[in-house]
C-alpha cells in the first residue's frame, strides 16, 4: 500500500482569526472525502493496481521472469504466411480500402452512408456526400452502427424451440405458413413490425395484404420522431408532414422540439441550423433560436432564449403564442391558457421578433406533443409566412390499414391470432406496460420472430418461438427513404456473418414468393420508381454508385390552412394542472446514445458520455435543482473550486447517486437520480432504452428500464408522478465532475449584436472580442507583433524559447497541419467522439474503469454551465454555493491541440512523443514505457493511458491478470482499422490528427502526381485530407488542413477575428484553435442579458474592482434572468 502522508489536522474553524491565508483551505476542506483525496496524492485507482501492492507485484514478476527463461519460446522466429486470393477479385487491391454507398435505416428515415471496406470487411462509415442535405456528415448512431455488425452476441443461427434450423428449413417453414394462410385469406395471421421507410417493404406489404386481406398488419415504434399526421389532416385536409429548412430561417422557435438530435432528419436540421448560425465576418447574419422546453436538450443548450416549461403546458404556451400573433383566435384559445402562468412580455417580444422576420421565421414543435399543438404550429407557420419558405410540406405515404399495437393486442386477447410474426422491434421490452405484452405473446400458439438478437421478445416463450436471425443492414440488400423522401440503397458490404435473412425476404416468402432474393426485390422496386421502360441494369448501377435515386425526393405540396379544422382538435383539450412537487410530470425521452434501446449492446455508444449529463453506461432520473432541494438532496462540492455546489455527490470521481423510486399511475420503477440544471422545476426526465435484460454482454444491466412506467395513454409524458428515496446509492460513471468554468476564459463568448446601449462588448462592435478576455487581454502577445505573422518554421527557429536543452522541431515539411473548431456552431452531439473511436481503434473500458477516470476517448466534449452568479470572493460568496436552475450552456470539444512547443514532449524520458516535420505531435507507441509524465504535464488533459490491455482482455476479468482470458474475439478483430496500431497495455495515446489519413492522403497525392508526370507537385490540395471528426461533424464546426496555404479552409477559419487559442498564454502555441461562441439574444426580451453569463463570471472573478460598474451588464441587479417567469429564478434561497 502506498505510504500515507499524514497531514496535520487543521485547527478548529472557530479558532481561526485574523486575515485569511491559504492555510485556511485545509480548514475549509474538512470533509472526509477531501481529506482522503489529499492523502492519496492521486485519485483512487490512478496510481496503483487494485488488490496488488508493489511488493506483491515485484514478487510475482520475479517468479514469472524466472519461469519465462526456461522455455525461451520467445527466441523462435514466428512463421507467418501471406495468403493471396485463389481467384482474383475484381476491384480489390490488397492494402487499399474500397468505398460503397449504403444507408442506415432508422424508423421513417435513413442516413445515406459511404462504407469503407478493407478486403470485404466494413470498418468505418461516413456520410454520403452525394446526398446534399447531409453534406457527407453522419450521426453518432450511424458512426457506431458498424460495431453492431460485429456484435458477438448476435443470433448466430435460426432456431426453433432452441434447435438450429437450416436456411432450407426456414424457407420451407415460411412457405408452409404462406400456404396455410392463403387458404384462410390470412385470418389468424398477424404481423407486427417496426416502422420503415423502405419502398420495397411498402410494396411487399401491399402485396401481402392483397393476398391475405384478413391478416393483421400492425406497426409499432416506442418513440415517435415525426409530427402526427392527424394535425396536418385536420388543418390542411391532406396527409402531409412538415419538412423545416433551418438554413433559411432567421428566427426559430422550438416548442419542446430537440430538432438537433431527437427529431427525424436531425442531421439535415443541424446542418441547416449551423448554416444560419455560422458567422465568419461581422457582416454575416446570425439566426436566433428561442427554445421552450421541459428538459435540457442539445437544442436547448444552443438557445439564445430558453424558457423552462413543463411539457404538459406546451399547449397553453402555443395557444398564448397564437393569440399574440392572431388576436382574433383569443375566443377559442383563451380557455386553453387558463391557469398557466406565462410571462406575456416574453411571448410578446418573441412574437414581435418572429413577425419582423416574416418569411424567414420558423416554428417547430416536438413530435411527442399532442396533435392540437401541431395544428396550432401549422397555423403559426402559415401566418408567419413560413409555409413554403422555411417549411415545406411533403405528402405522407401511408401504409394502408396498418393497425396500432393496441389493436393487435385486442385481437390477440380476442383469440383470433393463431400465428404471430414479429419483424424486428422488441415489444416485450418496450411495449406500453398496460398491454402486458409478454403474457399476450405467450398466449399465441405460434410466434415467429425475426431479429438480430435473441432478445427479450424472442425469450418470452422460447419453446414455442421460432427465431429467424436477421441480417444487419451492412449485410443486407434493401432500400429506404431519407426524411425528404429521397430513395437510398442499402447495400451489403459482406455476406451475412450468421446467415441472417433480410426483412423483405421474410415478407416476400410470407407473401407466397418461393424464390425471394433481396436484390431482385429491391431492383424491382427501384426500377418501378424510376419509371416505365427504364433499363434495370443501368438504373441499379447508377443508384448503387451514387447512393441516391436522383429526383426521388417527395415534391412539396401546397397547403391551405383551415382554422376550422383545428377546432375539433382543440375542443376536447383542457389545460393541465401545473406540476408540483407531489404531482410531478414525467417526460420519457429517447436516449441520445442507445435510442429506444435498440443500440444498447453497442459498447461505443454505451461508453460515450451523454451529451448533457456526461453519464456513461447508465441513464438517470433527471430532476431540477429546485426539486432536488425540495426532496432534500443537497450535494456539496469540492472546496477548492470557486463554484462550490456540484450537481451530484462525487466520491473519488464517482457520482454517488441516490436511488429513488419513481411511481406513476400505480407503477413504480427505481433508478439513480441526477440533478440536471435547466429542467422545468417539476418535470422529471427519464431516458428510455436502458435496463435491458437480454441485449447481450454489453447492454445487459446498464441503467434502469423506464418502459414499465409507460402506458398507452402516457407514452411521452405523464402527470401525477411521485419520487421516493429508497436510501440506496448507486455509483455512476460521470466523466465530467465539475460543471463550472470557474470564471476562466476557456470558452470565450460574446453577444452577436450590441445591446440597446452600445458598450463595445458585442461581436458586431468588436469582432476580436476574444482578445479582450483572458491573459491575452492585458499582456502583449507571446510571439510579439512580428512573431504572429511568421510561418511556423520561422517561429520555431527565430523566437527564443528559453535555454531549453530540448531540441525542438523545425517544421520544415511541405505542409503544416492545423485545425480550427468553431464553438459557435458546435452542437455537442458526440458524433466526432465515436467517429474518432471507430477510425482510431479506440477501445472501450467498461463502467468500472470509466468511474476511475480511465476512459480512452481521444475527444471529449466539455459541457459547462454558467449563471453569472459566481462571486469574486472566491471562497465566500453566496453565488458560489448555488446550482444554477437556468444556466447557459457552453460546449467545447477538447482533444490534443498539437502544441508547437508541447509540454508533453520535454518530460518524456524516452522520446516517445515528439513532433514531426509537419507539426503533428506524434506518439510512438513502441517507444512508450508508460511513465505518464506526459499526461501529467499536459495542460489540456487529453492524453489517455492504457492501464490494461483493453483489446486483448475481457473487461470483466481485467484484474485477473494472466489468469484471465487472452485474445480478441475474431469478430471484434474484423472491426479494427488496419491503418492504425492496436495499442497494448502500458502505453499512452491521444489524438494524432488522424496521422494515417494524413500520410495516406499525401502518398496518394504524390503517387498520382508522379504517375501523371508532375512529380514536383507534392502539396496536397485543400480538402483532400479530412480527419475523422471533421468528416462526420454534422455542423461543419471542425476544419483541418494545411496552414501554410493561405487559401485553405483552415487558414481562412483561423483568420477569423474570433479565433483564439485555449490556454494560449502558456506559449505552447497550439495548432488547434477555437472560434469564440456567439449568442444572439433579443434586447427586447425580458430575459435579455447584455453579456453572456460566462463573461459575467469572468468579469466578477477577474475584475472584482470593476465589479460595481457591472450594473449595466444586468447581472445580479435583475432577478429572474433566463428563468421562466412563472417560476422564481435560480435563486436557491427563494
Amino acid at each position: 500500500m502506498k505510504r500515507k502522508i499524514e497531514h496535520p489536522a487543521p485547527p478548529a474553524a472557530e479558532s481561526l482569526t485574523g486575515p485569511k491565508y491559504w492555510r485556511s483551505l485545509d480548514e475549509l476542506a474538512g470533509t472526509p472525502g477531501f481529506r482522503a483525496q489529499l492523502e492519496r496524492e492521486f485519485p483512487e485507482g490512478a496510481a496503483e493496481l487494485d488488490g496488488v501492492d508493489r511488493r506483491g507485484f515485484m514478487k510475482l514478476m520475479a517468479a514469472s521472469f524466472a519461469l519465462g527463461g526456461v522455455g525461451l519460446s520467445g527466441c523462435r522466429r514466428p512463421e507467418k504466411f501471406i495468403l493471396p486470393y485463389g481467384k482474383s477479385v475484381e476491384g480489390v487491391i490488397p492494402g487499399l480500402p474500397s468505398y460503397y454507398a449504403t444507408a442506415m435505416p432508422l424508423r421513417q428515415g435513413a442516413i445515406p452512408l459511404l462504407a469503407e471496406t478493407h478486403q470485404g470487411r466494413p470498418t468505418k462509415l461516413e456520410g454520403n456526400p452525394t446526398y446534399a442535405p447531409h453534406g457527407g456528415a453522419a450521426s453518432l448512431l450511424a458512426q457506431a452502427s458498424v460495431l453492431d455488425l460485429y456484435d458477438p452476441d448476435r443470433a448466430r443461427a435460426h432456431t426453433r424451440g432452441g434447435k438450429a434450423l437450416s436456411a432450407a428449413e426456414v424457407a420451407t417453414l415460411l412457405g408452409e405458413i404462406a400456404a396455410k394462410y392463403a387458404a384462410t385469406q390470412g385470418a389468424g395471421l398477424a404481423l407486427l413490425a417496426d416502422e420503415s421507410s423502405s419502398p420495397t417493404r411498402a410494396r411487399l406489404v401491399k402485396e401481402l395484404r392483397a393476398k391475405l386481406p384478413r391478416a393483421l398488419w400492425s406497426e409499432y415504434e416506442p418513440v415517435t420522431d415525426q409530427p402526427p399526421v392527424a394535425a396536418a389532416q385536420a388543418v390542411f385536409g391532406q396527409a402531409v408532414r412538415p419538412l423545416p429548412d433551418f438554413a433559411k430561417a432567421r428566427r426559430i422557435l422550438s416548442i419542446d422540439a430537440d430538432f438537433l438530435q431527437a427529431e427525424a432528419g436531425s442531421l439535415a436540421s443541424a446542418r441547416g441550423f449551423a448554416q444560419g448560425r455560422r458567422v465568419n465576418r461581422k457582416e454575416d447574419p446570425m439566426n436566433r433560436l428561442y427554445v421552450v422546453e421541459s428538459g435540457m436538450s442539445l437544442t436547448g443548450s444552443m438557445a439564445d432564449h430558453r424558457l423552462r416549461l413543463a411539457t404538459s403546458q406546451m399547449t397553453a404556451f402555443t395557444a398564448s403564442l397564437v393569440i399574440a400573433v392572431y388576436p382574433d383566435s383569443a375566443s377559442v384559445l383563451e380557455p386553453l391558457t387558463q391557469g398557466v402562468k406565462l410571462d406575456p412580455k416574453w411571448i410578446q417580444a418573441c412574437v414581435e421578433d418572429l413577425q419582423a422576420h416574416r418569411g424567414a421565421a420558423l416554428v417547430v414543435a416536438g413530435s411527442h406533443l399532442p396533435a392540437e399543438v401541431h395544428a396550432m404550429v401549422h397555423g403559426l407557420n402559415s401566418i408567419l409566412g413560413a409555409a413554403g419558405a422555411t417549411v415545406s410540406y411533403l405528402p405522407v405515404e401511408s401504409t394502408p390499414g396498418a393497425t396500432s399495437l393496441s389493436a393487435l393486442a385486442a385481437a390477440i386477447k380476442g383469440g383470433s391470432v393463431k400465428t404471430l410474426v414479429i419483424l424486428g422491434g422488441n415489444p416485450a421490452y418496450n411495449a406500453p406496460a398496460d398491454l402486458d405484452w409478454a403474457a399476450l405473446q405467450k398466449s399465441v400458439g405460434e410466434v415467429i420472430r425475426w431479429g438480430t438478437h435473441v432478445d427479450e421478445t424472442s425469450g418470452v416463450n422460447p419453446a414455442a418461438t421460432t427465431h429467424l436471425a436477421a441480417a444487419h443492414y451492412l449485410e443486407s440488400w434493401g432500400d429506404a427513404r431519407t426524411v425528404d423522401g429521397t430513395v437510398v440503397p442499402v447495400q451489403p458490404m459482406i455476406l451475412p456473418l450468421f446467415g441472417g435473412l433480410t426483412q423483405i425476404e421474410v415478407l416476400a416468402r410470407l407473401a407466397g414468393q418461393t424464390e425471394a432474393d433481396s436484390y431482385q426485390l429491391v431492383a424491382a422496386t427501384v426500377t418501378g420508381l424510376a419509371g416505365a421502360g427504364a433499363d434495370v441494369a443501368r438504373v441499379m448501377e447508377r443508384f448503387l454508385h451514387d447512393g441516391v435515386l436522383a429526383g426521388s425526393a417527395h415534391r412539396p405540396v401546397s397547403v391551405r390552412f383551415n382554422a376550422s379544422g383545428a377546432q375539433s382538435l382543440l375542443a376536447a383539450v383542457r389545460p393541465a394542472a401545473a406540476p408540483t412537487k407531489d404531482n410531478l410530470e414525467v417526460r420519457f425521452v429517447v436516449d441520445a446514445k442507445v435510442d429506444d434501446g435498440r443500440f444498447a449492446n453497442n459498447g461505443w455508444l454505451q461508453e460515450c458520455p451523454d451529451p448533457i449529463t456526461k453519464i456513461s453506461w447508465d441513464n438517470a432520473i433527471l430532476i431540477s435543482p429546485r426539486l432536488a432541494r425540495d426532496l432534500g438532496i443537497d450535494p456539496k462540492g469540492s472546496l477548492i473550486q470557486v463554484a462550490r455546489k456540484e450537481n451530484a455527490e462525487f466520491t473519488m470521481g464517482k457520482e454517488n447517486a441516490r436511488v429513488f423510486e419513481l411511481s406513476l399511475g400505480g407503477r413504480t420503477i427505481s433508478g439513480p437520480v441526477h440533478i440536471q440544471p435547466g429542467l422545468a422545476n417539476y418535470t422529471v426526465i427519464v431516458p428510455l432504452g436502458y435496463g435491458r435484460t437480454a441485449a447481450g454482454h454489453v447492454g445487459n444491466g446498464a441503467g434502469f428500464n423506464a418502459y414499465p412506467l409507460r402506458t398507452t395513454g402516457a407514452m411521452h409524458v405523464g402527470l401525477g408522478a411521485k419520487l421516493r428515496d429508497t436510501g440506496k446509492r448507486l455509483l455512476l460513471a460521470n466523466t465530467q465532475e465539475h460543471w463550472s468554468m470557474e470564471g476562466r476564459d476557456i470558452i470565450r463568448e460574446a453577444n452577436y449584436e450590441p445591446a440597446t446601449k452600445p458598450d463595445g462588448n458585442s461581436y458586431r462592435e468588436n469582432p476580436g472580442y476574444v482578445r479582450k478576455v483572458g491573459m491575452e487581454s492585458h499582456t502583449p502577445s507571446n510571439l510579439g507583433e512580428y512573431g504572429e505573422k511568421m510561418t511556423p518554421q520561422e517561429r520555431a527557429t527565430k523566437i527564443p524559447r528559453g535555454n531549453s536543452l530540448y531540441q525542438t522541431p523545425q517544421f520544415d515539411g511541405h505542409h503544416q497541419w492545423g485545425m480550427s473548431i468553431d464553438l459557435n456552431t458546435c452542437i455537442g452531439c458526440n458524433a466526432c467522439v465515436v467517429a474518432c473511436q471507430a477510425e482510431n481503434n479506440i477501445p472501450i473500458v467498461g463502467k468500472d474503469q470509466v468511474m476511475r477516470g480511465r476512459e480512452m476517448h481521444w475527444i471529449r466534449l466539455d459541457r459547462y454551465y454558467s449563471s453569472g452568479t459566481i462571486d469574486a470572493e472566491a471562497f465566500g460568496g453566496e453565488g458560489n454555493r448555488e446550482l444554477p436552475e437556468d444556466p447557459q450552456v457552453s460546449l467545447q470539444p477538447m482533444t490534443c491541440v498539437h502544441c508547437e512547443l508541447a509540454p508533453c514532449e520535454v518530460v518524456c524520458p524516452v522520446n516517445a512523443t515528439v513532433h514531426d516535420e509537419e507539426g503533428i505531435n506524434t506518439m510512438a507507441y513502441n517507444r512508450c514505457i508508460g511513465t505518464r509524465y506526459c499526461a501529467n504535464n499536459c495542460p489540456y488533459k487529453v492524453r489517455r493511458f492504457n492501464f490494461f490491455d483493453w483489446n486483448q482482455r475481457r473487461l470483466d476479468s481485467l484484474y485477473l491478470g494472466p489468469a484471465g482470458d487472452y485474445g480478441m474475439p475474431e469478430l471484434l478483430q474484423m472491426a479494427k482499422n488496419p491503418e492504425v496500431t492496436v495499442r497494448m497495455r502500458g502505453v499512452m495515446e491521444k489524438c494524432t490528427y488522424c496521422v494515417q489519413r494524413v500520410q495516406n492522403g499525401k502518398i496518394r497525392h504524390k503517387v498520382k502526381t508522379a504517375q501523371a508526370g508532375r512529380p514536383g507537385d507534392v502539396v496536397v490540395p485543400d480538402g483532400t485530407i479530412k480527419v475523422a471528426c471533421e468528416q462526420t461533424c454534422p455542423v461543419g464546426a471542425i476544419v483541418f488542413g494545411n496552414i501554410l496555404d493561405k487559401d485553405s479552409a483552415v487558414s481562412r477559419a483561423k483568420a477569423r477575428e474570433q479565433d483564439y487559442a485555449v490556454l494560449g498564454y502558456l506559449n505552447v502555441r497550439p495548432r488547434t484553435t477555437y472560434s469564440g461562441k456567439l449568442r444572439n439574444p433579443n434586447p427586447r426580451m425580458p430575459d435579455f442579458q447584455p453579456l453572456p453569463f460566462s463573461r459575467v463570471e469572468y468579469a466578477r472573478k477577474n475584475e472584482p474592482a470593476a465589479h460595481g460598474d457591472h450594473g449595466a451588464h444586468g447581472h445580479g441587479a435583475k432577478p429572474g434572468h433566463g428563468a421562466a417567469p412563472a417560476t422564481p429564478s435560480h435563486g436557491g434561497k427563494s
Partner: protein
Amino acid sequence: MSKLFPKSANQLPLQILIYLAVVAGIATAGVNYYMTPKYTRVGYAPVQPVPFSHAKHVQEVGLDCRYCHSHVDKSAHSNVPTSQTCMNCHSILKTNSPLLAPVRESYAQGTPVPWVWIHQTPDYAYFNHAAHVNKGISCVECHGKVNEMDTVTHMQPLSMAFCLECHRDPASRIRDPKDVYNLDSARLADQGEAGRKAAEAFKHDWKLLPPQSCSGCHR
C-alpha cells in the same frame, strides 16, 4: 583478524570493475550483433509451398516485377499474386507439374496458397510500397537482387536504422524512375559525377523530403 583479507584483495575492486566492463562490453556487442535484424533476419530463406524461382521467371521468361506484383505502384502492400495469375500461364505450361499442384488446387478451390512471409515489417511500422517505387526507389534497395534468386532470401536488415539511412540521404539511393523495376540498374549516385548531379537535381525537382520523424511510419 588482520589476515582475513590478503593484501592482494586491495586490487579486488578494480579487478571487479574491469571484469564488469569487459562483460558488459561483450554483452553489448553480442546483443548488438546477434539480437538485431542484421543477424536475425538477413539470410532468412524459408521453404515455400511451391519452389518458385524468381530467377527463372525474370531472366528466362522476362517477366516484369509488376506482372505478378501488380499493385505495387498503387498500394501500400505489394501484393503476392493470386493463383489465378499463376494459372494465366500455367494452365498452358507445365500443366501437370507436381510442383504446381498447390497452385492448381488453390485455383480450383479458391483457397490461398500459404506463402511464407519473408520480408516482415513489425505491426507498428507502416511501409508503403507505392510511395517508394513511384519516387525512384527500386525494389532492389530492400529486397536485393530477387531477379537472380532461385529461393527468395532476406538480404537487408530492414531495421529502423536501415530505413533512416536512406531517409536521411535519399539522393544516394535513388534511381532513374524508369530503372526502378530493373534490378540490374545502378543508382544515380553510382554513375559518376553526372549521376550524382542528376541525383541532386532529382531530389530538388521532385521535392524529395522523406520523413525522418515517427509519424512517417508509425501510426
